[in-house]
């Protein structure tokens, strides 16, 4: 057995650093080329989202009226005007600046939504799983089923429209509403996942052993069950990010969400859509970025799933 040899070998030999689950997982991830592509795609997008707006010559809201007027009040295509490398829209707003600022908005939405999802989904799934078979479990899961059965986009739209005029709907330039609305429909998958994890994990002997030494329920859930069930949660979260980007884009496209002059990739597409034949750069530039983001996160999510699956341990 490998463990035996390791133990024997270590008695006299220099102590090796403890290799953990995460180190192993990262090692496997590093060997997965697609996942690395995804990881670099994400790092690239995050980089331009964080630092891009700081270095662009134009603020996202600035209108270069002179340039548009000179162009006859029409959008400027890319690579025509050296001061607007990626062109402008019909209002003279610099596309590059708006795309970079849009990266900020879209990525922020995607990530904050995941926190909402974790905040709702994990506790509900954990409680339902730990007290499985009880009335609490039944209540929580039927509620989850109802949420699951409801058409996502419809619920998001209803929710957004209902609260749009309130202070809550206006907060953070309309973004808070988007976070909560998308989060409210996305947590169900995570809740079910966590419950399923807990159902199988709570039957394990180490949980029984922990109970036998009098560990409290809270500590069993937090220290024993969650860390053991975390891998699929991480994968679900990573794969939830592109879904949230897409949901945000869909919302922005129909005018819900971040309010002008700020723009997300989705609202940029919406704004450019009337000009899709004459000035396609207004739609395909943000479209490309959305595609890159989706593919990157999906690749990374798939890679993580393989890397964190203990059954693959030692292979590849």
């Amino acid at each position, binding site marked *: *057995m490998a463990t035996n040899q390791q133990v024997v070998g270590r008695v006299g030999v220099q102590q090796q650093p403890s290799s953990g689950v995460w180190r192993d997982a990262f090692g496997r991830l590093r060997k997965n080329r697609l996942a690395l592509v995804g990881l670099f795609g994400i790092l690239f997008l995050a980089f331009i989202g964080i630092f891009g707006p700081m270095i662009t010559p134009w603020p996202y809201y600035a209108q270069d009226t002179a340039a548009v007027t000179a162009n006859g009040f029409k959008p400027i295509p890319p690579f025509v005007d050296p001061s607007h490398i990626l062109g402008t829209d019909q209002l003279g707003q610099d596309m590059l600046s708006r795309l970079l600022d849009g990266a900020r908005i879209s990525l922020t939405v995607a990530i904050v939504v995941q926190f909402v999802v974790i905040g709702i989904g994990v506790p509900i799934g954990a409680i339902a799983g730990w007290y499985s078979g009880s009335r609490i479990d039944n209540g929580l899961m039927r509620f989850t089923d109802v949420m699951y059965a409801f058409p996502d986009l419809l619920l998001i739209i209803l929710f957004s429209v209902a609260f749009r005029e309130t202070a809550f709907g206006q907060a953070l330039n309309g973004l808070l509403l988007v976070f909560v609305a998308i989060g409210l429909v996305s947590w169900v998958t995570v809740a079910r996942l966590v419950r399923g994890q807990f159902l199988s994990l709570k039957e394990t002997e*180490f949980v029984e052993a922990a109970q036998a030494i009098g560990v409290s329920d809270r500590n069993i859930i937090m220290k024993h069950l969650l860390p*053991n069930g975390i891998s699929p949660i991480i994968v679900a979260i990573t794969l939830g990010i592109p879904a949230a980007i897409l949901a945000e884009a869909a919302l922005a496209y129909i005018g819900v969400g971040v309010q002008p002059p700020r723009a997300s990739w989705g609202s940029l597409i919406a704004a450019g859509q009337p000009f899709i034949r004459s000035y396609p750069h207004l739609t395909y530039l943000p479209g490309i970025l959305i595609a890159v983001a989706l593919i990157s996160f999906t690749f990374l999510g798939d890679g993580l799933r393989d890397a964190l699956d203990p059954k693959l341990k030692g292979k590849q």
Partner: protein
Amino acid sequence: MTGSEDVSLADAPTIVELSPEDVLRARGEAIANAGMGRKADHLLEVRGLSTHFSTPDGVVQAVGDVSFDVGYGETLGLVGESGCGKSVTALSIARLVPDPPGKIVAGSITFDGIDLLKLSVEDMRKLRGKEIGFIFQDPLTSLNPTLTIGYQIGEAIKEHMGLPDKAAKDRIVELLSKVGIPRAKDRLKDYPFQFSGGMRQRVMIAIALSCDPKLILADEPTTALDVTIQAQILELIQKLSTEFGTAVLLITHDLGIAAGMCDRVNVMYAGRIVETGSVDELFEAPRMPYAWGLLDSLPRIDDVRGDRLRTIEGLPPLLIDPPVACRFNPRCAYTRDICRTEEPELTVRDSPGHLARCWATEPGGWIA
């Protein structure tokens, strides 16, 4: 309850500060004086314990009317075939029977003067690990793969003893070296997968002993280990239980282990205790056909090679519908009518501590 807490709280810091020799001596004295603080004659008194499981096919009477005592510092064996209720008895004592489907339906369990079945869930939790340690069968699955060894040993200490971090860590290291793990200090940050099976069982023993319990329930502690490791682990349990003055309820299906480790042995069959006595009495003069069968099924060195191994004919009964009267009667070679109509009681045989549940070996029975 409060009394026992005072004792162990007073104990805890001294164990950490004293040298091992001092601890040994203090322990010895404590055992010698054990009569003084005692609230009961026995550390554990189980009376009429019945644990049932509701299944779709009916109620499984896993443990029926089991009574026994464990004295302070004593090692009591619980032997029997698979499915005869040994483990459920241990789980019932720790109140860890999964509910549903399991339920303790009758009886009382008195531990050190405390009626365990009347304790609240929270009080029972505080007792587990602190006063009653548990060693499970399979060390490979009983340790959490995502937590370090040091954390898992420290868990009970943190939960029950409230030691400051430094003292807790010292105690963890001390425990780990006590159970024979070399370079204990360096291994606290290791994960279970870096330990072999035998070492993990040592860790489990360290966990069971971590809060200096009065009783350890060892549920087939060596079944998952290979024979050479078995001997080491048993020796360790024996050594440490003597050193700490801990009583052990050793569950095993291995009669050799029971003979080597225990002061007294209970033989269980189909949820009942069918014979109880000191090791010598039970192995030299068993007074119940089932115990004969068990002893007879041990392979012997003078067996003719190639002969069939001896077994007890038939299978243990399903406990949904146990045999009426004597539960062993369908498999017993000495059955007479009374065995099928009336259940014998556990009655005294040749010496006061030796009891058996059999019509045939009672005074006036048909087996002398």
